């Protein structure tokens, strides 16, 4: 988490109210880290802390791709659709391949809660594109057979 502006508890000054609201993104990051995703409960708590309505918090959170309003699978498979990955013919074929194998579309989670498929921007592995990230683990130079092996291994892990 990042140092943000000084927090105050005063709320009669519009500027101070504004500063409280300015903590919202940082607060959502913290809540997401604790809960794994932004559940109703997490949103409720953030709203209470910052004197905002649940609607305000939800509307803001839903604008940003980094905030997850759905439960996430145990393994978050992030396929890069950045430029370098695209140029080597990655992205679309890989996304389609994984989507077909898991039977889910990007943004969805398998019914057993194991995998979430996501499409993301550059993973900073352009030199070894195409790249796929699973949770915090990066996989480079991906091929269809490498995906087969990866998914097989993850299926077997508990």
């Amino acid at each position, binding site marked *: 988490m990042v140092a*943000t502006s000084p927090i105050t508890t005063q709320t009669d000054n519009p500027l101070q109210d504004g500063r409280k609201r300015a*903590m919202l993104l940082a607060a959502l990051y913290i809540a997401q880290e604790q809960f794994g995703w932004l559940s109703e409960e997490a949103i409720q708590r953030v709203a209470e802390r910052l004197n905002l309505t649940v609607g305000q918090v939800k509307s803001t959170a839903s604008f*940003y791709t*980094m905030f997850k309003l759905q439960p996430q699978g145990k393994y978050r498979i992030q396929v890069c659709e950045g*430029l370098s990955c695209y140029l080597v013919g990655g992205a679309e*074929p890989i996304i389609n391949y994984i989507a077909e194998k898991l039977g889910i579309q990007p943004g969805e989670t398998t019914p057993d809660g194991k995998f979430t498929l996501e499409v993301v921007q550059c993973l900073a592995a352009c030199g070894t594109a195409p790249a796929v990230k699973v949770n915090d683990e990066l996989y480079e130079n991906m091929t269809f057979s490498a995906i087969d092996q990866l998914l097989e291994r993850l299926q077997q892990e508990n």
Partner: protein
Amino acid sequence: MESPVQPQPNPLTIPSYTDLPFYRKQVRIALRNCGIINPERIEEYIERGGYLALAKAVTEMTPDEVIGVMKDSKLRGRGGAGFVTGIKWEFARRSPAKPKYVICNADEGDPGAFMDRSILEGDPHSVIEGMAIAAYAIGSEEGYIYCRAEYPLAIAHLKIAIQQAREFGFLGKNIFGTNFSFDLYIKEGAGAFVCGEETALMASIEGRRGEPRPRPPFPAVSGLWNKPSNVNNVKSYAMTPQIILNGAEWFASIGTESSPGTAIFALTGKINHTGLIEVPMGTTLREIIYDIGGGIPGGKQFKAVQTGGPLGGCLPAEALDTPVDFDSLVQAGATMGSGGMIVVDEDTCMVEFAKYFLTFASAESCGKCVPCRIGGRRLLEVLTRIGNGEGKPEDLDEIEYISRNMKEASLCALGQLTPGPVMASLRFFRSEYEAHIYDKKCPAKVCRGLITYKVIEENCTGCMVCKRNCPAGAISGEKRQVHYIDPNICERCGICIEVCKFDAIMIE
């Protein structure tokens, strides 16, 4: 430029790095410390003249004099639009309301761009010093750096740098014993490209949806929390200390008359030497791509270079002698943008390439205004149709019609510029579009609706590997017999090419 690691003249074989072709044509102002100092030690920045410019500004110059130097240097903002920085500062200074805010736009979201990230990671103090000078000039005591969340190392280095600057008294109360006070905070984005637009960025700092609003009022009049605010790009701030130290004339002597100083690009794509470069404005695309970038790998033909990222445009080989500066690039049909430079070769289909940027930009539409939200989607439908071989002759007019509307009626530059890459590729590579539509052919053999996979009979050994691996079951053939791919079943996924050990499959 003095380097602590002085390149020793070596009479034998090893050339100094400044002699390498990649570096020889470069002039490093914003990148002068990157890779040379340890960004986690403020002492190393100070040894290289760091914070001298801030000291000079606050102890020897009035705010108006600082603005005067910036105006004389004619520095144009490096975030894309190229607005003169000194004039922007003057607007903010003249705004009567208080407090005022200094904001650094570090939301760099263009695919293939990583200039701002390199500066934040490699030389964070140059940005902090530039922001402090801006704060002194406009009369602000509080600043924000809005950094995209995808750059954790940049954020970490910034945090360290801000802390050290506070300890050394370069941030905080009564800087250099004067009555100038200024402090700085980091705000982390959350994955929305449109937040790079300055009004959306300020909404996001305020903890709201990052939707742009119409300008005027400009941020200099009513910005963050409706107070006067000055927004500049990372590179603009990083160049500021050098301008204050070395003077406006020095800066204006580099580059061209209307675009002084240096241009910073992230060279990527089909090019031998990828990486960050800083060259005097006015250097030609040819010099950058061939002399610095070392040309196209694998003996392939250069096809196009995209500048300005997903909101820019591409230029063909005929335009390689265009000098790189704000005005010449626009004249040629592209834009400067914030500094991505992507080179593609003969294997890239320009329809597909344009579709890539369009997919990116239209997905980032915040949805607030109709031309951008609907127009982007409609354009994408047309390009998809063309790529699938279902294009109609009137589609090219349709592209131009939608593009014109988006350009004229969208609320912010995102919508206005989204059709840019499509328009540029249509202008310079019209024949490729026509080949897709009339001949149902993709000249670069990329578009899946227009290619067929075929077995090269002489090479096929009948090993059956492709048949076993084909997910669609499109391949037939007996062991040691030439195989056959049924084009009606084939999904063009490319797995057969990947697994074939005998180069026996080709695309037609």
